[in-house]
């Protein structure tokens, strides 16, 4: 099942290590992190859509999608840039006739940005299983509301 | 909006009593069912395993959750093991009933159970012959004793075969032997079921199911058949007779005693005790015009077949009988007795009397029944009922007037006799096409199906298409209540069947007895198959259990299919959780034993399935459509 990089914004500390790591592995960073109103940082990178819009206008089929996995052959890409206009997230960037988008670091076991994220904010997983740990946390919080508050001075040895 | 009572049953008497129950705020099985809804889906699919304390484990049928139990059991294993345990329980019920009968027979032969005697000597000698007990210069008592010990040995034996399986056609026996499903001993198969389904023993679905078939055969051609044969010897082989059924049989002015359960050992005595002059005198003293005994479930069927005692109702009508307010004593022994009767009888003057050493219930006056002093105990029970007559509070009494005539008592022997000693006239009728084939419709009631809706409509559909129907258990009572067990019912049959029925003066639907008496159908089918020189699976016959509920029905279904008869079930068995097991039962078995199951809640579609199979068999036998 195609995996992708997902961000848990409650953990991102805006350190931009992912940008550095991506730049080192792929010449230019395909993930961009910006701090919003000094209160939170949000990374953005290609969402690896399973029914991608970016492949729709590609005249030469350079950008194609087989069973949910995006493939890009630079040789027959004409650099027309139509895919950059079709991507709703604007994460397909045309630079020197080649489309630069996150290809999930094929050479590495987990993408560089996920491996390097100090806060563990980037997760590389199958889309369906994203909800699992979020639900666990939510359920824990819901259930803790039921537990009576810990008595003063409780010592957890 | 139609009152709920109408949706719950098609039988007017039942509807009347349901309305009364609603008015009196009495909870019945239907109300309790509604409180259970929605029922657990894992249970319905059979993918819940509680066989060890690492569990309970359940398998997510849609593959998102767990796909194996803690020990790694897959859905196939769990469904197969649960099914095997149902067959084991069903077979155990029948076979233990047979054990009681044989023990009574043994005590009778030893002179310890004076209340009993031998009613059908011919059958005694034919059974003895079957067991190879020579009859010349031997007294009846000696033969009886030897036969008793031979029969008793069938239960404990470790190596096969079980004597009565020899009655099946040669091809069938060879098939069972090849498949390794020839039963070796009645108790042994059941114990092995329990062993195999213990955690970590038999974990291959097909392997488990094969043993299931073997256990069911030890029930069908073992336990049940022994019960029927011994009961015929002790109480006589049923002959055709007339009787009445439904709640209307209860009388306003007589002491009503209901015999409910499965073993005739008790009910025969009660019927006899009810004719005891002293008790009749006492009844008169108490202001009753007499003692009226009515049956429910199979113990009712047994006395109905042999004495024509009226039947008050099917399994689901046991509470309604009490609700009429006219029942002085509800006398029960084993199987299909609802514990709710305990609290229900509390609301009325009815005495709930449990008798079997093996079965007790909350809220009963217990009068333990033993064969040694059978008749005395029976009299004591009837006396209790008679003494209870004055306590009846008239304002609570309301007996529906629905009462239906019926012609019963069609044991295999009776049918053969009616056909002139051999099955040929029937075979010719079938060959000729006036009778397309034989339909065996059996089974109990189930709140999941509108009461008697499945039974009656399926049977009507079959006879309309010239299929001679043989019936037992609650289906028989349901058909009787719908007026199908009278010769006049031939008018509802197709032309061919109508002609045959009118010629022989028999109803299109033959009541062959209680649940254990399905063995009579096997004997009949085997006789016809041998006469035709084919296997049972080649006969144009099909079985059905439109409203089955008890584990006995699962065992019956299993041995009917293993004997080669295609069976259609009305309610869904808990097997759909495993595609493999479901496929094996509904398709795979055809290749194994020449018959398989089908599940079809709609009685009309069920009938067409049976007709199609019968058509298929006729074509195979070269009979014209």
């Amino acid at each position: 099942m195609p995996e992708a990089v997902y961000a848990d914004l409650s953990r991102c500390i805006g350190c931009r290590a992912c940008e550095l790591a991506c730049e080192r592995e792929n010449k230019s960073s395909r993930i961009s992190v910006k701090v919003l109103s000094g209160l939170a940082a949000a990374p953005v990178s290609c969402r690896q859509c399973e029914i991608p819009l970016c492949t729709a206008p590609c005249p030469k089929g350079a950008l194609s999608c087989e069973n949910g996995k995006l493939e890009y052959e630079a040789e027959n890409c004409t650099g027309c840039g139509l895919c950059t206009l079709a991507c709703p997230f604007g994460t397909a960037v045309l630079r020197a006739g080649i489309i630069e988008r996150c290809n999930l670091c094929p050479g590495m076991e987990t993408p560089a940005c996920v491996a390097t994220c100090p806060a563990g904010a980037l997760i590389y997983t199958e889309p369906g299983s994203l909800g699992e740990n979020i639900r666990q946390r939510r359920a824990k919080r819901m259930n803790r509301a039921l537990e009576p508050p810990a008595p003063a001075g409780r010592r957890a040895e | 909006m139609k009152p709920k009572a109408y949706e719950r049953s098609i039988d007017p008497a039942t509807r009347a009593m349901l309305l009364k129950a609603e008015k009196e705020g009495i909870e019945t099985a239907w109300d309790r069912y509604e409180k259970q809804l929605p029922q657990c889906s894992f249970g319905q699919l059979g993918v819940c395993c509680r066989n060890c304390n690492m569990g309970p484990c359940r398998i997510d049928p849609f593959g998102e959750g767990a796909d194996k139990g803690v020990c790694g059991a897959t859905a196939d294993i769990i469904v197969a093991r649960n099914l095997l345990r149902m067959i084991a329980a069903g077979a155990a019920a029948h076979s233990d009933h047979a054990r009681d009968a044989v023990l009574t027979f043994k005590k009778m032969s030893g002179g310890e159970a004076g209340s009993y005697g031998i009613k059908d000597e011919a059958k005694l000698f034919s059974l003895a012959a079957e067991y190879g007990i020579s009859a010349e210069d031997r007294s009846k008592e000696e033969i009886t004793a030897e036969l008793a010990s031979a029969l008793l040995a069938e239960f404990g034996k470790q190596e096969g075969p079980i004597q009565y399986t020899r009655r099946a056609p040669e091809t069938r026996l060879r098939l069972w032997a090849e498949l390794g499903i020839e039963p070796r001993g009645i108790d042994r198969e059941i114990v092995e079921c329990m062993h195999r389904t213990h955690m970590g023993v038999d974990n291959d679905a097909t392997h488990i199911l094969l043993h299931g078939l073997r256990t069911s055969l030890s029930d069908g051609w073992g336990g049940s058949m022994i019960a029927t044969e011994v009961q015929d010897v002790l109480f006589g082989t049923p002959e055709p007779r007339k009787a009445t059924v439904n709640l209307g049989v209860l009388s306003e002015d007589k002491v009503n005693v209901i015999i409910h359960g499965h073993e005739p050992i008790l009910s025969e005595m009660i019927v006899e005790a009810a004719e005891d002059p002293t008790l009749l005198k006492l009844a008169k003293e108490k202001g009753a015009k007499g003692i009226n005994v009515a049956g429910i479930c199979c113990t009712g069927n047994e006395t109905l077949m042999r004495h024509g005692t009226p039947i008050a109702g099917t399994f689901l009508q046991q509470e309604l009988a009490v609700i009429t307010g006219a029942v002085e004593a509800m006398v029960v022994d084993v199987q299909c007795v609802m514990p709710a009767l305990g609290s229900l009888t509390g609301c009325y003057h009815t005495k709930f009397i449990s008798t079997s050493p093996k079965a007790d219930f909350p809220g009963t006056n217990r009068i333990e029944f033993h064969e040694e002093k059978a008749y005395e105990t029976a009299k004591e029970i009837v006396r209790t009922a008679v003494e209870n007559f004055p306590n009846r509070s008239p304002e609570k009494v309301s007996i529906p007037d629905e009462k239906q005539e019926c012609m019963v008592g069609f044991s295999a022997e009776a049918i053969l006799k009616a056909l002139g000693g051999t099955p040929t006239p029937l075979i010719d009728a079938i060959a000729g096409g006036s009778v397309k084939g034989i339909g065996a419709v059996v089974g109990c009631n189930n709140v999941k199906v509108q009461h008697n809706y499945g039974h009656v409509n399926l049977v009507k559909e079959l006879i309309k298409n010239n299929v001679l129907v043989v019936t037992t258990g609650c289906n028989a009572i349901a058909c009787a209540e719908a007026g199908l067990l009278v010769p006049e019912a031939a008018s509802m049959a197709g032309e061919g069947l109508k002609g045959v029925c009118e010629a022989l003066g028999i109803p299109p639907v033959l009541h062959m007895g209680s649940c254990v008496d399905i063995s009579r159908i096997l004997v009949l089918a085997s006789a016809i198959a041998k006469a035709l020189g084919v296997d049972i699976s080649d006969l144009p016959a099909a079985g059905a259990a439109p409203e089955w509920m008890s584990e006995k029905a699962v065992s019956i279904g299993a041995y009917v299919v293993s004997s080669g008869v295609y069976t259609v079930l009305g309610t869904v068995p808990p097997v759909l959780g495993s595609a493999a097991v479901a496929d094996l039962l509904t398709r795979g078995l055809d290749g194994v034993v020449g018959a398989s199951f089908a599940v079809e809640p709609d009685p009309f579609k069920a009938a067409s399935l049976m007709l199609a199979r019968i058509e298929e068999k006729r074509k195979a036998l070269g009979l014209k459509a």
Partner: protein
Amino acid sequence: MKEVMVRPERCMGCRSCEIACAVEHSESKSLFAAVGESPSPRKRIYIEYIPEHAASVPVTCRHCEDAPCTTVCPTGALSREEISRKVVHSPELCIGCWTCSMVCNYGVIGRQKEARVAVKCDLCPGREVPACVEACPTNALVYAEVKDFSGIKRAEAALKLARGMKPGSAL
């Protein structure tokens, strides 16, 4: 707007709601037929077991007022129905980008593997009461307006207090 409200203390983790939800969103809508269906039906309610508290909690879509998933969905597949205020998903618009399941802080957006689209709770439009609420044997799920539900909770708490029990504990 009525919502599926949860009383975690009553949840026994029998998962009947999960199966009922999957069956309700299958083609045949009947348990026995749905079992064999492909694509196999997907549940929209999730029972989360918490080992530390040995408790199970049903987690389902809260149909948030300004749902992060509707704001983030690029093609408008996830949108709020004007009249019913429900957050609904139209599969034909879904491009499988999964940003909705990334921002949803209940983690209740599931995935239909075969069609590669998101699936989420739509409060069973065809039914008067959602399938999960109906299927719950212990009434841990209640389909009510928020204000009515807090009424139920208040009554329950009062009852428990009257019996000298802690309001949060199960009956």
